[in-house]
């Protein structure tokens, strides 16, 4: 047989997950100097992962990353097989037979837990499910969020927490021309939430927002950002952290908090906006309290200890309670296992070395990974490009080992299997039809698109 990677024997790679990491892995393979055929499997009919269902609807420019993914998808080497769940509709072993290598880029679909009593009370939610709900993800379409309370609490101070807080802070007018799902806009229009508390375990010098996300809270139509100036006092280690030249991002964030604390105390109360978003630090929830549903959250004040950049928060033994009926935790994601793939349970990732999946420290032939399921849920869209490029470099370095002499036929052998299992898969051209329909539905409302939020609705476009 011709050499693997030559014109007559292309390297066939299956990519599991069509989010940014999947697309960047596909791009890196296609741009390499060997012949490849890439089949990207996606469990939903719609591609693009968190760019579609994670990025906030009021951040349309970020979603323009899709223009690049569209271009990658036009390459003749690229093929999308959507509406197919690996591990259910097709097994990992079957992919091993059909492809020389498999790159898992399936992200981190589950949440970390607070691990405190009452966490499962009604009214206690994850930021993930709320984000997926307002972004129209079919798995979360039927969720209900009780927005009838005046007080909402968000645990965590990263960009996802900021997204949740901002969506709760905005008026319907600020959201109605975005691609927010219709059911979410209707529910948010009835929201009674007035006070939003965004609570961080560590101090204002350690908040993980990007300056850009935090700056948006100074520009809201009917919500004030509030920071109590007493919360901005810093210990010595934090002063050192902010004085470090390389830590300019944290310095910018701290300066914004200072700006917000100045705003809260000046000006007449009559000029106050209808909603207030409070940023609070050095506290952790220790218990969610309520009979049948969340009524209040018990919070402990924290103290920082440790050297600069290594400070950790410890409970001070001083507590108070905050009345609230709705709480979102946004303290990190974790991956979900796939049958037949090694999984690191405590980290929630696929264990790997430079993107090669490992089991008991031995690399597993054919298995690679990139993105959040490889390195954990950190970084933003572009971070995954560097990550996927690195994994593809590992894969291409293994080319000789991947060449077992066995013929791999790629998607060709998968289609009859899927047909026999009554799985209705779709390709990228078919997705574009659904995409076009969504854009059409959005037009009369002045929205960039009105998403389909049920899988059946999406598929019916193709009938």
């Amino acid at each position, binding site marked *: 047989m011709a050499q693997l990677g030559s014109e007559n024997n292309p390297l066939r790679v299956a990519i599991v997950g069509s989010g940014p990491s999947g697309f960047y892995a596909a791009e890196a393979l296609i741009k390499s100097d060997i012949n490849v055929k890439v089949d990207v499997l996606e469990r939903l009919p719609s591609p693009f992962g968190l760019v579609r269902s994670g990025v906030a609807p009021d951040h349309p420019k*970020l979603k323009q*990353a899709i223009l690049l993914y569209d271009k990658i998808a036009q390459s003749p080497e690229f093929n999308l097989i959507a509406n197919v769940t690996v591990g259910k509709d097709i097994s990992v072993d079957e992919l091993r037979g059909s492809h020389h290598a498999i790159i898992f880029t399936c992200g981190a679909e589950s949440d970390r837990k607070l691990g405190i009593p009452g966490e499962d009370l009604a009214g206690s939610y994850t930021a993930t499910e709320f984000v997926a709900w307002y972004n129209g993800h079919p798995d979360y379409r039927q969720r209900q969020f009780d927005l009838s309370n005046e007080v909402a609490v968000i645990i965590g101070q990263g960009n996802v927490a900021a997204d949740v807080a901002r969506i709760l802070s905005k008026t319907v007018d600020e959201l109605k021309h975005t691609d927010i799902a219709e059911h979410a806009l209707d529910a948010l229009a009835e929201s009674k939430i007035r006070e939003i508390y965004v609570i961080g375990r560590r101090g204002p010098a350690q908040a993980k927002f990007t*300056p850009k996300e935090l700056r948006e809270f100074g520009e809201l139509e009917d919500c004030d950002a509030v920071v109590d100036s007493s919360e901005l006092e810093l210990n010595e280690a934090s002063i050192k952290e902010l004085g470090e030249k390389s830590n*300019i991002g944290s310095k*910018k964030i701290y300066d914004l908090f200072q700006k917000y604390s100045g705003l809260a105390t000046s000006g007449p109360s009559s000029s106050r906006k209808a909603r207030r978003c409070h940023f609070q630090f050095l506290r952790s929830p220790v218990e969610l309290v309520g009979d049948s549903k969340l009524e209040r959250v018990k919070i402990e004040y924290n103290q920082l200890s440790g050297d600069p950049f290594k400070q950790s928060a410890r409970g001070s033994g001083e507590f108070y309670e905050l009345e609230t009926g709705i709480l979102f935790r946004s303290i990190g994601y974790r991956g979900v296992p796939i049958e037949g793939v090694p999984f690191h349970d405590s980290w929630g990732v696929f264990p790997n070395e430079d993107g090669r999946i490992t089991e008991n420290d031995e690399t597993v032939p054919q298995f690679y990974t990139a993105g959040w399921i490889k390195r954990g849920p950190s970084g933003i*869209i572009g*971070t995954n490009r560097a990550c996927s490029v690195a994994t593809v470099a590992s894969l291409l370095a293994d080319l000789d080992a991947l060449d077992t002499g066995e013929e791999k036929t790629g998607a060709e052998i998968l289609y009859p299997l899927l047909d026999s299992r009554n799985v209705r898969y779709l390709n990228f051209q078919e997705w574009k039809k659904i995409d076009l329909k969504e854009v059409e539905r959005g037009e009369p409302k002045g929205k960039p698109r009105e998403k389909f939020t049920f899988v059946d609705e999406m598929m019916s476009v193709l009938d």
Partner: protein
Amino acid sequence: MTTIVTDNCKSCRFTDCVTVCPVACFHYDDEMLYIDPDVCIDCSACIPECPVQAIFEDDDIPKDQEKWIAINAEKAPDLPVCDEQMDPLPGAEERKTELGF
């Protein structure tokens, strides 16, 4: 809103930034990098990557660097794209030290 490469990139061109750009909007000449504002999606992933803090958002750019907004927009589109890390320019490490990083 846009993101801009400024003075500090000159004679450095470390290109750490381009590896995390989700849309390949960096372009280069013999001196430095430039961002094409029509392609950039303002994700700000590149900003913390720069070892000499040359990259700013336009609403956060120091006054004396504002001229770079126009220069990036003018120059980038006609220059070649840089989407893979290149070797820094000769003397880049010295310049980095000079800049206090």
